[in-house]
């Protein structure tokens, strides 16, 4: 066991897979010699060399297109898009190319690659470097979408993503990079499509992802301490495949459902999960499901405004408490 930052877990996760499989290669802007703008790839260039860890021009279409061509023909590329906001300039690959080539070719073409990207707010970067865009990807048939919240999950889900035969979009949360967690020694391999109950409870189910997981846990502690409300927090971890069984099982025990989403409200992943629960577990619910989200706004840069926009520990706790007492 060792304590590791989320940032160092990214490095260890990539290194674990590159050590295991010589077909795993890693490309992106400033990822090699510079060690990445978030310092989340420091040392990989030195460890694996310039052929396997390769700096690219600022050409997001070329990065993702090249990753796809390599994946189609036998490599297992990991490609970095520095900020997930930049998906908008290379979205053709995410929306039209990676996920459709297998289907359109009737199974002839494969696309086993990982796109890792810095997602989410909290760094005061403003509206074009702070978004949570996992829902942009969740809606596309053919993609898999994961977003780890802990160092251990970063390594395990990275391994699962690299070993997966489908294109996986791997959302790292920028504000989690300095956070720490216990990580076991040796190889860690997790499973895509598995949610994790990170705090058991009996009064309400709170579904959260990435940065919202520690906030939901903190809110649950606050609710327990201040109001005696015992919340179960489920880290969804993987939006596609989606572990609906863990979610439905939790709702069947707690009878109340909350989602905590960093994305703006419209078409957030929570809406899909609420819809699934409404369809399949309506009579398990003792009250209306509640979505706690960022408002339908671009994110502001100023700290007091950004903090107001993103779901906070206090807002989560207040909303759950108000709803349960209604």
């Amino acid at each position, binding site marked *: 066991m060792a304590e590791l930052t989320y940032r160092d877990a990214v490095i260890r996760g990539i290194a674990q897979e590159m050590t295991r499989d010589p077909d795993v*290669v890693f490309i992106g802007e400033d990822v090699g010699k510079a060690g990445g703008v978030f310092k989340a790839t420091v040392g990989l260039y030195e460890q694996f060399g310039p*052929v396997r860890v*390769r700096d*690219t*021009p600022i*050409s997001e*279409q*070329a*990065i*993702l*297109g*090249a*990753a*796809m*061509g*390599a*994946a*189609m*023909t*036998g*490599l297992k*590329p990991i490609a970095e898009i520095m900020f997930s906001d930049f998906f908008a300039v290379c979205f*053709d*690959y995410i929306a*039209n*190319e990676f996920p459709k*080539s*297998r*289907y*359109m*070719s*009737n*199974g*002839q*073409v*494969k696309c*086993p690659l990982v796109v890792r990207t810095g997602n989410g707010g909290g760094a005061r970067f403003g509206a074009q470097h702070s978004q949570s865009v996992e829902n942009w990807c969740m809606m596309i*048939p*053919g993609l*898999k979408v994961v977003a780890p919240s802990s160092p251990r999950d970063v390594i395990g889900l990275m391994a699962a993503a690299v070993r*997966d*035969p*489908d294109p996986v979009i791997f959302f790292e949360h920028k504000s989690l990079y300095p956070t720490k967690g216990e990580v076991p020694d040796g190889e860690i391999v997790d499973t895509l*499509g598995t949610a994790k109950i990170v705090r058991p409870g009996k009064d309400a189910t709170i579904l959260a992802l990435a940065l919202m997981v520690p906030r939901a846990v903190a809110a649950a502690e606050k609710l327990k301490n201040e109001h005696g409300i015992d919340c179960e927090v489920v880290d969804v971890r993987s939006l*596609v*495949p*989606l*572990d*609906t*069984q863990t979610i439905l099982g939790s709702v069947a025990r707690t009878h109340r459902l909350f989602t905590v989403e960093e994305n703006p409200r419209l078409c957030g992943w929570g809406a899909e999960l609420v819809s*699934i629960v409404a369809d399949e577990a309506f009579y398990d619910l003792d009250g209306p499901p509640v979505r706690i989200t960022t408002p339908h706004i671009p994110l502001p840069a100023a700290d007091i405004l950004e903090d107001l926009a993103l779901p906070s520990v206090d807002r989560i706790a207040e909303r759950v408490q108000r709803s349960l007492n209604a």
Partner: protein
Amino acid sequence: MAKIEDRAPGSTASLNDDIGEEKRLALYRTQVVIREAEQRAYDLFLQNLVKGTSHLSLGQEAVAAGFAVAMRPGDLSFCTYRGHAHTLARGVPVSKVLGELMQRDIGLMRGKGGSMHLTSVDHGVMGSYAIIGAHLPIACGAAWRAQYKGQKDVSVCFFGDGTTNIGAFHEALNFAAVWKLPVVFVCENNLYMEYTPISEVTAVEHPAADRAASYGLPRIVVDGNDADAVYRIAAVAYDKARAGDGPSLIECMTYRYSGHSRADPAKYRPEGELEKWKARDPIKLYRERLKQFGVGDDAIARIDSEVKREVDEATELCKAAPPPSLDILTTDVYADGGFAWRN
């Protein structure tokens, strides 16, 4: 061997028989296969047996033939939505192509892709891409794999003149040049992006070749209606790629006889332009070339009739073939063969 002394007086054909009769017959046959299959696709469309859209390469056969015949097995083709020609040129059976256009179960992708996405990995046809420019970076990636693994195949990427004005073109050219990738970019300049003349929307005369210098590449413009000229430049580019000397960008001047797609009657073309290009029809031109090198009329006629028979038989096969079975609607979304997104 071809007889150079039989060359017609005043011919512009090269004296140099560097290509040889076997390759020349392959170049001819490939062009005729494309011509006959594309013409048949058009006829079947008029009969409402080809549905959706289709983008024909009638008039552009020499480009596809020249690049394909110069390839080795294992070389990879990346095509556009105007990709029937390049798919056929790699030896994919006509019935597989027409079957896909006609939405039959025997089609290349059993009707799941359609005219714009012809793919036959077994033949090195790594897909036909319908988002302009998307496949240039993808071809770079396949070439990067070859470079990384020390494999000697070349990735060949075909696109139209309109593609030279989209960002992915420029990203891919720079990327390939900086990484010295074994990729060959082939611009088929048929003078029209879709309906608009390429010259009206492009800052340079030759939309691909005049940009080559930006990426440290030589400026190459070739007569795209002369299969020999295309074959020769392809061979040079492939050798360069295999030698580890990086990418090439080749602009082939040609002309499409039909409109952009089946919906386009091409009324925007100036009077006489089509006729002028038809006078330099690549297949007519190549028949003369074969004769200059001593191939007899009977040998040419034999190829013509063999191809005609293949296309006729493919047409009948496709007409009789069933539509796709409904159970493939949800197959091959994910690698496990299905479309499950949840447990």
